[in-house]
């Protein structure tokens, strides 16, 4: 049993795969000096400048460049410093990276991993704090992964690097320094598989990334009130492991989806729609979604805190779903729980 930080899991995954497969290369702004979060520290010294390429600030072109390298047989890992800047790379990512296999009728393969850091917290403001996974969930040809803990950071990144399709790998900034027990550091889970982190019988909370920890804390609070919440960590956002989700909902009959991303048009909408299409008769109550309000991320600490859903928000949502009296003051002036 090892303890590891999330960032160490990421770095370890890259190192292991670069050792194992000469075709794996790393590209991105400042990656040669470790990047702003230190994840690529030491890679340049170890693997050389042919395999660790520091790029200028040219997101559109470096996304295309990484794709072109993949077309010619490399397995690139491109780092986009903040998901907000992926907007600059959208044309290459959506029009080429995601579609070349299809448009070529299967002749071409794009085994590329796009690592992005995302999320609010820290007061960095509207251009450095967004959660944009819903956009990419919507693009056929891309896979999307969002690990919540160090073990999955390690295992799922290795899986993504070995996958022959382009994978958008989402790392929440707020998870970087969390330490987790890693029971099997060599495990490489399959992409597209969710994990039930906590069993329960009264409702299913479906979530991912940093919100997983708020959900688990909420489940603890609810347990003290004799409510048993099952918490599912999706891990993969495209493809979604709806089998695990549906199996759980059939047992608990209630579903709450939680994400930091804006509620409107978020992944909660897709998941809820899918559940009601397939498991309508098992539901005892309407499903709810917790997400951020429909606003850009504010810089002010007070506003940012009000913006990002947290344990309190989740508990209040459950109270509402189950018709319970609020345990404490759970004013939700921003209506994060409902439209």
């Amino acid at each position: 049993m090892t303890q590891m930080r999330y960032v160490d899991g990421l770095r370890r995954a890259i190192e292991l795969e670069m050792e194992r497969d000469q075709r794996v290369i790393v590209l991105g702004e400042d990656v040669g000096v470790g990047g702003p979060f230190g994840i690529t520290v030491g890679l340049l010294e170890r693997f050389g400048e042919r395999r660790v390429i520091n790029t200028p600030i040219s997101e559109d072109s470096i996304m295309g460049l990484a794709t072109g390298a993949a077309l010619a047989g490399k397995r690139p890992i491109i780092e986009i410093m903040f998901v907000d800047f992926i907007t600059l790379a959208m044309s290459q990512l959506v029009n080429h990276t995601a579609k070349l296999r299809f448009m070529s009728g299967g002749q071409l393969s794009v085994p590329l991993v796009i690592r992005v850091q995302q999320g609010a917290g820290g007061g960095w403001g509207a251009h450095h704090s967004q959660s944009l996974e819903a956009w990419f969930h919507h693009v056929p040809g891309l896979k999307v992964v969002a690990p919540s803990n160090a073990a999955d950071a390690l295992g799922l990144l290795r899986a993504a690097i070995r996958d022959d399709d382009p994978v958008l790998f989402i790392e929440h900034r707020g998870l970087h320094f969390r330490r987790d027990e890693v029971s099997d550091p060599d495990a490489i889970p399959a992409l597209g598989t969710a994990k039930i982190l906590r069993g329960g019988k009264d409702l299913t909370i479906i979530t991912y990334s940093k919100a997983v920890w708020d959900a688990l804390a909420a489940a603890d609070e609810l347990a003290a009130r004799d409510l048993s919440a099952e918490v599912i960590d999706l891990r993969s956002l495209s493809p979604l492991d709806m089998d695990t989700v549906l199996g759980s909902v059939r047992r608990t009959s209630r579903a709450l989806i939680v994400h930091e991303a804006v509620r409107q048009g978020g992944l909660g909408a897709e998941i809820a729609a899918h559940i009601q299409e397939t498991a309508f008769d098992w539901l005892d109550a309407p499903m709810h979604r917790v997400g951020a309000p429909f606003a850009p991320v504010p810089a002010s600490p007070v506003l940012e805190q009000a913006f990002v859903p947290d344990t309190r928000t989740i508990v209040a949502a459950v109270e509402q779903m189950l018709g319970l009296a609020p345990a404490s003051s759970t004013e939700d002036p921003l209506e994060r729980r409902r439209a």
Partner: protein
Amino acid sequence: MTQPHSYSVEAKRKFLEQMLTIRRAEEQVIHFATDHEDLIRGHFHVYIGQEASGVGACAALGPDDYVFTTHRNHGHVIARGGELGPVLAEIIGRTTGYNKGRGGTFHVIAPHLGILQTSGVVGGCVPLAAGAAFSIKKRGTRQVSLVFFGDGVLEEGAFYEAVNLASLWKLPVVFVCENNDVARERRKGGASPSDSLAARQLTDISNAFSVPSVTADGADMLAMAAAMGDAVSKVRGGAGPVFVESRITRWPGNAGTFPALLGGDYRLDWALAPSSGPKELQDWLQHSDPVALFVRTLVANGAMSKADVEAMDARIRKAVAEAASFALASPAPKAECALEHIFAA
């Protein structure tokens, strides 16, 4: 070639006053980060060492001109007339800030001063500045649209698209590139070797688009004022865009990930006698600190006495301290108003 300019004593005093205001305000921002828990979270960028560039540029502008800038905007906002209280309050996210705490340090915007946007996205404001210039041209006014950006922006495609359009349509844009990684011996001209930009001279790029381009020593207050004065009047005259590269040697306190007040708060003694300053700042104080260079020039020429300078600095420090208290005492926004100002109605 920049025409010789002469500046009155009054004008020079004004320049120094603005430079010192920026210097002291940015020190205060660093103190906000180091002396308080959780007041400035995340990253922030200060303009220490670059004051001559922003002051020179803004001095050339008229009240109706537009300004666009970047994450390193505090100096520009102050040089443009931003008041210390609302600037500092915005930086720490209070309701009395220019943007009611929604922008934060990266996004101190003041439309009433013509500062329409600052961007956290490298190069993000360059197309916006071209657009504002397009609007000026359509309306037929004599405004100009000035955009500040760093040398990194020349790696971003958006810059090229905007320069092409500005040149093609002869838009009244003043492109001000603050290249802040220039070795001190190269500031008055010369190449900019870089491991992320293959162009030897930044101005080669703008020249390729037939945009008249000049370089200026970003540590020389009067040279900056002259170069910017010429650039702005040329653009205002309808000749199309102009590109100015302000060549700056980085303040050593900006060498790391976060700004650090090496040797503590700035002392005027260091400006007048660099050898009295901290070891790490010696070279910079001697050759590259715009404040030090200007103070020494003013005192040597008799435009100001040492006592004048000290008195001016003392007034400024007091004003900054008051503004800091104002900011700290200002309320944080209430959670309920997080959803305001997203849409018009």
